């Protein structure tokens, strides 16, 4: 069921403080007992191009973004041009007075294809060339405009603080915006103050300057603006909550799961995870001992994946983390790891592709690549998380899977999860168990002949890590015999192929249902949605709304994508009237897999490939169109700037 919420968006050039603003805003809401869902969008650029942060805030849990913006804090004219159409009637726009005269077609950062779009819009809607014309057009939809004379405000604040040079404090514009925003929302300013202080915790002077600015702006807004309808109200909570991104969740999950070597080569949106780990390299155990994770920035992803395999063979839980371009370079190493049954973990954040694609944008176009990456046939596991909490637990679980089944595991994520942030009750991870699978130690081996790839019933051969006494053995990328030596014998070959592949059957048998599939909504209804990965939140909310509207609909989230839980999925889909596949890609990859694995084809597809994640609003709309039989087979979603 979708949730009442308030939506605040900050937008501006990269480097102009949008992220910090969103961070402070989100914290302040959190301190007031509110749930927040944040979506961050930015160009593949360091400074100057447009970026924005959309925060959805509610007293109840929020799982995804919606289309509406209730209050748009525009740091520049471009933000207005790109987002004004999202602002809801009765919503508001905060904009600097000095920007109102901007001629929109002269904004230098707009590319020709976007200028053509807006020129068309202006022509069709009779909107003039200045930002003011745009704002007036919005006013016709009852959007309120709150012009703020930032420069004047800064001058006054500077005076108060004894700073003459305004350029030194222009970066505080973002805090002014927050002040204005909270004033409009009539939110408790003490919470905002606390958020500012905590954000600048390590720089007391800057914190105080910003608090002063915040209050100045708050007062200014109270004084000058009224009539804004939206409110943010704090509530009292008596549970601990955290607000975190997918990147952070994965990093912590890895630590929990025992990952002690992480290799990486910088790439968006994976690198933040490795940097978080490196910055927090040393950790404590519950017994107060020190442990540490070694994070190695390698020369490329080829080195990253193979070094991780090496570390795994030596007995460390090891992982590497990347996105599409990096994963492409890893596939030869993946194939080696598959052949050698290495417990290797690859964290794979999908982003807009092909090739460099949309490096900082979202996509789910790499599922089938992950399934088949690497020449030849070998066993691998692909586990896809669907939300930030799953990111955390799955990031730990994948090491158990890798070691128990002795095969590479791809933890498949996406940019939306990596960079979105969400409020959760604090994770209760105390029950997490480390399962290292069949692992022999020196004393188990004494006086025995050890064969690394011994043929067994299940296909799993007890493992020994490099350096263990009495356990000398070999690895090779060539087909090998039980000792690990090269073998081209046809019989050995057949048995080795079968040994490796049949472990997949064991995985299917042993992995618990909730790690294969999750069910939401009404599983007895005649309509069912199938999806995977980050669309999950929007789908859960959308079917909640639909059910409130009287439609019967369920949702299966596929988590284990390989080996594919065909029986369970078939069971869930059998007899349904409408099977609706929702994915952020063009070719409906999960849909194809379902068709192949179960013989049942989805009859509707809701797809998006603009580089932006789906929202609750648009999923709800598309599903409703389908449920009312007004849809085409393929519904393509396009929302989002």
């Amino acid at each position, binding site marked *: 069921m979708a949730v009442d919420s308030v939506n605040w968006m900050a937008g501006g050039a990269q480097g102009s403080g949008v992220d910090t603003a969103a961070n402070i805003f989100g*914290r302040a809401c959190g301190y007031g*007992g509110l749930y927040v869902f944040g979506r961050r969008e930015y160009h593949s650029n360091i400074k100057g191009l447009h970026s924005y942060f959309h925060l959805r805030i509610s007293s109840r849990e929020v799982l995804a973004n919606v289309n509406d913006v209730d209050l748009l804090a525009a740091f520049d004219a471009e933000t207005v041009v790109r987002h004004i159409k999202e602002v809801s009637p009765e919503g508001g726009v905060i904009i600097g007075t000095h920007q109102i005269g901007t001629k929109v077609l002269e904004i230098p950062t707009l590319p020709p294809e976007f200028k053509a779009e807006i020129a068309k819009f202006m022509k069709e809607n009779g909107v003039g060339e200045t930002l003011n014309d745009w704002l007036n057009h919005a006013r016709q939809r009852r959007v309120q405009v709150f012009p703020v004379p930032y420069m004047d405000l800064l001058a006054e604040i500077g005076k108060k603080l004894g700073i003459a040079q305004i350029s030194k404090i222009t970066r505080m514009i973002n805090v002014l915006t927050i002040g204005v925003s909270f004033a409009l929302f009539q939110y408790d300013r003490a919470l905002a103050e606390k958020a500012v202080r905590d954000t600048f915790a390590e720089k007391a002077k800057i914190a105080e300057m910003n608090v002063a600015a915040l209050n100045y702006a708050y007062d200014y807004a109270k004084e000058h603006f009224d009539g804004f309808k939206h409110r943010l109200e704090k509530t009292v909570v008596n*549970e601990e909550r955290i607000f975190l991104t997918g990147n952070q969740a994965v990093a912590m999950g890895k630590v929990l799961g025992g990952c002690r070597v992480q290799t990486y080569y910088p790439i968006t949106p994976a690198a933040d995870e490795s940097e978080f780990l490196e910055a927090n390299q040393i*950790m404590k155990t*519950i017994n107060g001992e020190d442990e540490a994770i070694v994070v190695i920035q390698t*020369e490329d992803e080829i080195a*990253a994946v193979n070094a991780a395999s090496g570390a795994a063979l030596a007995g460390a*839980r090891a992982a590497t983390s990347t996105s599409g371009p990096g994963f492409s370079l890893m596939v030869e190493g993946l194939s080696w790891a598959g052949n050698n049954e290495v417990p290797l973990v690859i964290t794979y954040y999908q982003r807009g592709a092909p090739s460099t694609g949309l490096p900082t944008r979202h996509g789910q176009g790499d599922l089938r690549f992950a399934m088949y990456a690497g020449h030849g046939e070998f066993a691998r596991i692909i586990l896809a998380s669907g939300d930030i909490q799953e990111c955390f637990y799955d990031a730990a679980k994948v090491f158990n899977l890798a070691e128990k089944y002795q095969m590479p595991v791809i933890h498949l994520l996406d940019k939306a999860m990596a960079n979105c942030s969400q409020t959760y009750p604090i994770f209760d991870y105390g029950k997490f168990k480390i399962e290292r699978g069949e692992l022999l130690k020196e004393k188990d081996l004494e006086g025995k002949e050890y064969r690394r790839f011994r043929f067994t019933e299940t296909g799993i051969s007890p493992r020994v890590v490099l350096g263990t006494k009495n356990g000398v053995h*070999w690895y090779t990328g060539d087909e090998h015999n039980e000792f690990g030596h090269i073998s081209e014998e046809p019989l050995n070959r057949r048995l080795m192929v079968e040994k490796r592949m049949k472990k997949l059957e064991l995985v299917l048998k042993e992995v618990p249902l909730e790690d294969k599939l999750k069910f939401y909504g009404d599983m007895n209804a005649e309509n069912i949605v199938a999806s995977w990965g980050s669309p999950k939140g929007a789908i859960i909310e959308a079917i909640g709304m639909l059910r409130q509207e009287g439609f019967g609909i369920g949702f299966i989230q596929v988590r284990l994508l390989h080996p594919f839980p065909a029986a369970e999925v078939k069971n869930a889909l059998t007899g349904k009237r409408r099977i609706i596949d929702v994915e952020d890609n063009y070719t409906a990859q999960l849909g194809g897999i379902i068709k192949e694995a179960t013989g049942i084809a989805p009859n509707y597809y809701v797809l998006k490939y603009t580089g932006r994640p789906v929202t609750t609003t648009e999923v709800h709309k598309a599903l409703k169109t389908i449920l009312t039989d007004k849809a085409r087979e393929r519904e393509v979603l396009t929302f989002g700037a």
Partner: protein
Amino acid sequence: MVLKPSDFRVPEVYADWCPGCGDFGIMNALQMAFAELGLEPHQIVLVSGIGCSGKEAHNVKCYGVHTLHGRTLPFAMGIKVANPNLEVLAIGGDGDGLGIGAGHFVNAGRRNLDMTYIIHNNGVYGLTKGQASPTLRLGVQTKSLPKPNINEAINSIGLAIISGFTFAARSYAYDVRHLKDTIKQAIQHKGLAFIDCLQPCPTYNNVTTKEWYAGEDRKDASGKPQPRLYKLEETGFDPVVHDWAEDFQKKMAALDKAREWGDRIPIGVFYKNELEPTFQDRLTSRIPFYMQRPPAKQKLCDENGFSTVDLSEFMKELKTS
């Protein structure tokens, strides 16, 4: 327990190199070096690449990781970082290390991990039937080439030195004793050691043959061949950097020696510097207990399997209430 070279043999594996291949010499030298250093098989990891040379790993009794073409150094790095107490040697072909693997070669120099890298320098891609390798000189035409070689050769000693290897040596597969001693020195060196091992490939390289190295094409008046190889250590050449101040000069001397080819080819140690901190040293400065509890040796969980890690510090950062 004192081991003999023969304790490092792998009788169940047929060493399938061509008769007369230099790879046999390298195998023997490795086995001898390990025995003389008093290492036990389980303490050593031999990481090899793809090529005839890659098969070395199967012919020596110690942990053997026969990896991918060109990727010995990354695998070796992962192993060594996870467990720095292992003796890790990477070995591979010249194509493996200097063609497809050149990027890792250069970047390994930046880390100076305490391990050894041995290249089988035979001038050809042996296992793919004799194409030119990166050490074959411009214009040379070995027997399986349809045309004379169109690329210049890589100066592997020079490349190692410029890239930051702190030990660079050359030896010869048929001088097993010299090679064995060089391998021992490389293993004992504190830092990343490189050995360029000249390795005749009697099948495909009919230019730099055993006979050529032995100088059989240039006999002196008495009919005695004039060997092309000479030992640097016998010329009083001192490769050791005792002080950073002499580093550049030692490097230049090494580069000067490295360009000698043709009639006189030096073998031995060209350059050695133990002043540079190893990667392990550098990790220890970040993680004081790194050598004692490296990644492969951490406990991760209690006797019931519950993860023992404490995430409360991380959680604190993220708390909103």
